[in-house]
């Protein structure tokens, strides 16, 4: 697997979410990702980035164009926040420690082709997403 392009953007304020969306749109355009996959990836990314602002305060997001059998876009989101105590629970629909909808993580997972989450209490959280242009 080859990485054709890669860029890392910070997440520390709401404005960053719009920059991230902009870069994903740019990369999606470059590989000709169909609209529906683009919207799904943008939505999943928005959920993950918003979680960083809400629960970890700040972090960073690396967005890459991958080339394998297919081309695709990979999003790696990392923060050094408080981490998630119970990832299995956090992945369940409706689970939220902040009284919001609890759809972010499970929703993001169902919107992309590849979803990985690693989290360690008081170390941080890393989420990786890929959408392939099949």
């Amino acid at each position, binding site marked *: 697997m080859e990485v054709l392009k890669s860029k890392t953007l910070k997440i520390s304020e*709401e*404005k960053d979410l*719009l920059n991230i*969306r902009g870069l994903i749109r740019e990369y999606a355009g470059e590989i000709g990702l169909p*609209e*529906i996959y*683009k*919207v*799904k990836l*943008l*939505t999943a990314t*928005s*959920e993950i980035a*918003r979680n960083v602002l809400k629960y970890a305060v700040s972090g960073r997001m690396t967005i890459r164009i991958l080339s394998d059998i297919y081309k695709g876009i990979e999003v790696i989101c990392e923060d050094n926040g408080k981490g998630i105590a119970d990832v299995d629970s956090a992945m369940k*629909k409706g689970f939220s420690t902040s009284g*919001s*909808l609890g*759809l*972010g993580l*499970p*929703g993001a997972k*169902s*919107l992309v082709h590849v979803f990985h989450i690693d989290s360690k209490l008081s170390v941080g959280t890393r989420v990786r997403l890929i959408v392939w242009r099949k």
Partner: protein
Amino acid sequence: MEKIPVLKIGNLLLISIQTDIYDSQGLQLQDDIANLLQRHSFRGVILDISSLSIVDSFMGKIINNIASISLVMGAETVVSGMQPAVAITLVELGLEMPNVKTTLSLEKAIQFFNEKFNRETDQDGSSQE
């Protein structure tokens, strides 16, 4: 941060979201609509989102909140122009919008309310006879 304008047209509130918005603008919009509904009696809220390229769970929650507040204040909420990709994404995200009616376009939303109000005046007329 720029406010999203809320237009008053007869007994309807019309909001057209033109670009992707900040969370704070969404929350402000929710408050503005709630205030207007409390102070005057509106019968419908039309939220045109034809220019919105994504609706995530936060924005979805704001739309649901607007619909719930409207319902309590006797107004119905119609979301118009939701792009097909957005609609599909919302379903996969698991976000339901129980109190929201959707129409393909803003025109159809206005037509929906016109027909609804006409039906009601017809009924009022006949019950008085």
